[in-house]
């Protein structure tokens, strides 16, 4: 079978057989986001009332007429109401009386016409992927607006727009929104949508958990934003103690939202791991697994193992603030260092939860646009696993300046430097693929090249910062901020953009405007660098983080950075215009295989049919065999009868 360059469009399915029961009712009478909102409001007020009833004599803040117990119970009941309104618990009652799960029209979400399926607890992984895509773009834009507010204030060395407390609030909201919500920016849209397609599966292992993972993200987003009306939180994205215990009620929103998003991440990772292990098509050996799936697999392990510690830390923080425990209060037998240890045990794997999916997307893109097999495939896979494992052993480098035993510093400096080795593997795999390639400079490839450029700067500055003397000198300065923006925005977000331009035609059947896409790329690349490169210099010149005032001699450089940041915001606006206009008005169809890619998703119709594959495919070769003489097609999409049965049933059983 040759690579299909123009697969057919999926047959229009129409309404199909008339759905029974709940599915036959009009959309507004069925569980969805609107009923979820009603449930959330009712739940919030119920929880709030209960909190006042239980903890009415607790200290009240001047910023609010309520107490922490009422707020946290309001959030908790609000989230339960939100999920109940969405219909998440509908099947539970059925199960508890022993009935099997109902026939699943929700598993075939894309079969349904209209947009209502995107606002419901739909179980089709492709619908969940698209829900994530729009959600993540919304969260990213919100975090970006907070960044614009920060840079607006920093146009002047003294207070002129927002005061010191509001500035801290904006910094905290920006940082938390980006670090917390963007954890799923690739695993959510592309991982959920393409993970099963890339392994040749018709379904995921736990569709309910997957959908629940998404629907927790809007709840976390709203809860985090609600901190703004309660005066925000002064701790930035790290929520350090003892400041967190001393802060006003906005801190409750931080802990609750981060914990909730943590549960979402665990659920998404859990489903991904089980799916990849058990639902791979026959012939999809580990040595043929697409690199994007390797990255999802590794990141999912980090999420399932590291994020529970964050959830525990957030829970302890909330307990201290509501139940009056003293986990983090030194005078009462607790320790603020305990929080730092727990937070960074999650926090450093979090950095790789953000970085590795970017490498996964880029690895797919470079092989396609270089028309070459991925160089050193096994080394890249080993690099992913190596980064994942080592990321659990470096967290103490975040505590170099917090008063840890100085004798411990060299050990964690060493582990931090070691992690650059597997990261380097993955990076060099890209370089090896570029070698003597006939590169096609399409938009996804441009973003991929920019990813490598940016990540190189971010990575090298990271190795520099891992050294104790450098860290102790630059800690808390703009130098550190420049470093992690180069890895996270320069890495993750550029990879996200590459993924959008690369995969959106497959997800929607519509391609983005090419000219605007190129304008978007060049403006984003240039203004990203003109914004963040000078921050290294500002950091070396002594500019501290999270402070709204600075020395007058730093004003010119700060003004340059602010203006660049606004232009960077403008480039995102160009993307947004392109996205909205292309999706809603221009709607230029792209139903084939525009990149002439070998990987499995591109061998399907566009958008993929409801069950992904007509039959369980049999994988025949690597997805990266570009230009390989006599390479087999990547899969047999319609294997003869008996082949699949032989793959899972022992020969004697088949004969019997």
């Amino acid at each position, binding site marked *: 079978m040759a690579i299909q360059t123009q697969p057919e469009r999926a047959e229009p399915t129409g309404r199909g057989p008339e759905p029974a029961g709940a599915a036959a009712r009009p959309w507004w009478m069925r569980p969805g986001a609107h009923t979820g909102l009603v449930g959330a409001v009712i739940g919030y007020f119920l929880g709030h009332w209960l909190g006042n009833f239980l903890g009415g004599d607790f200290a009240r803040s001047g910023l609010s007429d309520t107490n922490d117990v009422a707020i946290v119970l309001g959030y908790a009941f609000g989230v339960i109401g939100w999920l109940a309104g969405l219909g998440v618990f509908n099947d*539970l009652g059925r*199960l*508890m*009386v*022993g*009935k*099997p799960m109902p026939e699943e029209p929700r598993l075939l979400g894309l079969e349904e016409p209209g947009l209502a399926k995107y606002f419901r607890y739909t179980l089709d992984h492709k619908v969940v992927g698209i829900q994530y895509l729009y959600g993540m773009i919304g969260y990213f834009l919100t975090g970006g607006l907070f960044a614009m507010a920060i840079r607006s204030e920093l146009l002047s060395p003294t207070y002129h727009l927002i005061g010191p407390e509001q500035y801290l609030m904006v910094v905290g909201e920006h940082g938390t929104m980006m670090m917390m919500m963007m954890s799923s920016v690739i695993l959510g849209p592309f991982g959920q949508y393409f993970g099963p397609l890339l392994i040749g*599966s*018709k*379904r995921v*292992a*736990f569709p309910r958990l997957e959908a629940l993972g998404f629907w927790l993200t809007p709840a976390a987003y709203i809860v985090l934003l609600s901190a703004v009306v309660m005066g925000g939180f002064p701790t930035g994205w790290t929520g350090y103690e003892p400041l967190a215990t001393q802060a006003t009620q906005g801190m409750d929103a931080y802990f609750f939202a981060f914990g909730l998003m943590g549960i979402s991440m*665990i659920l998404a990772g*859990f489903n991904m*791991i*089980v*799916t990849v*292990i*058990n*639902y791979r098509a*026959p012939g999809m050996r580990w040595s043929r697994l697409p690199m994007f799936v390797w990255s999802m697999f590794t990141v999912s392990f980090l999420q*399932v*193992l*590291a994020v*529970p*510690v964050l*959830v*525990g*830390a957030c*829970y*302890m923080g909330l*307990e*201290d603030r509501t*139940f*009056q*425990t*003293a*986990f983090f*209060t*030194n*005078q*009462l*037998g*607790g*320790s603020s*260092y*305990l929080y730092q*240890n*727990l937070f960074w045990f999650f926090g450093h794997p979090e950095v790789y939860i953000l970085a590795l999916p970017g490498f996964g997307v880029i690895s797919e893109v470079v092989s396609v646009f270089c028309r070459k097999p991925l160089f050193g495939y096994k080394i890249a896979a080993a690099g992913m696993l190596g980064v994942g494992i080592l990321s659990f052993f470096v967290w103490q480098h975040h505590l170099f300046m917090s008063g840890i035993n100085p004798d411990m510093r060299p050990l964690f400096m060493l582990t931090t430097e070691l992690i650059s080795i597997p990261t380097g593997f993955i990076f060099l795999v890209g370089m090896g693929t570029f070698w003597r390639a006939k590169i096609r400079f399409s938009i996804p490839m441009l973003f991929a090249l920019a990813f490598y450029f940016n990540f190189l700067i971010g990575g090298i500055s990271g190795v520099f910062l891992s050294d104790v003397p450098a860290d102790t000198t630059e800690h808390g300065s703009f130098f550190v901020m420049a470093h992690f923006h180069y890895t996270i925005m320069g890495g993750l977000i550029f990879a996200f953009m590459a993924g959008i331009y690369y995969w959106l035609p497959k997800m929607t059947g519509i391609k983005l405007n090419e000219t605007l896409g190129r304008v978007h790329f060049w403006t984003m690349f240039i203004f990203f660098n003109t914004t963040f490169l000078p921050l290294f210099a500002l950091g070396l010149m002594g500019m501290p983080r999270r402070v709204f005032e600075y020395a007058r001699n730093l004003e010119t450089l700060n003004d340059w950075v602010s203006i660049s940041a606004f232009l960077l915001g403008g480039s995102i606006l160009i993307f947004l215009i392109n996205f909205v206009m292309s999706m809603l008005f221009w709607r230029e169809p792209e139903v084939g295989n525009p990149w002439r890619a070998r990987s499995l998703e591109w061998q399907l119709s566009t958008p993929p049919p409801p069950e992904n594959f007509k*039959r*369980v495919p049999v994988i025949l070769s690597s997805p990266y065999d570009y230009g390989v003489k006599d390479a087999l097609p990547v899969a047999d999409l319609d294997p003869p*009868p*008996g082949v*699949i*049965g032989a*793959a*899972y*049933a022992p020969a004697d059983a088949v004969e019997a």
Partner: protein
Amino acid sequence: MADTTSPVAAVQAEDEGFYHESALNAAWTGSRLAIGGLTFLFGAFLFAYFYLRSLNSSGRWQGSGYVPPSLWQGTVIMLLAEVSAGANYFGLQRIKAGSKSTWQISGLVALAFGLAAVAFQIYQLATLPFPPGSSGYSSVFTGFYPVFLTIQLAAMIWLEIVLARSRFIPAMSFVEQPPTIADTQDVQKFQANLSAFSATWNYLALMALLFWFLFYAL
């Protein structure tokens, strides 16, 4: 029973068989993965316990005038969880040998003891002899047990679902091959689900024992 005589139906059955097999394996993988995730969650409390105990900030790991939680209450709660896990394990062996009714009885016993452990734990938390924030020990104690009992409660809901489902599976299906593929798959799904639950519940019983040792014996 689906018509498997036509070629289309035959390949559909083949595909369904593939995903049925995958689902059985997913139950095994999922339960072990859940155990891994829970270990890290409990690990956060374990770390807090040893960190605060070794640090003894302001001399208040337990502090002066410390009154310990009731040993007999804690022991009874732990034993309830252990007996529940033991009963379930015994029943699992019996159902593997083909006796559905014995499993159902021991499953009900496991459910009753598990729910009793949860209820008694709530009672103990409501009548503790110390305020939650009086010391490092009291913080970890009053922080850990609400999480643990919530997870135990979720496990008991899982057991109730398994018990309820078992009512609709004929006892003979556990003794000999059911007459149809669909029935066979139903039994296999049930067994995979029960096996996954048992692994998780045994693990939670082990954790109950570990934290009892930390909070009451160490």
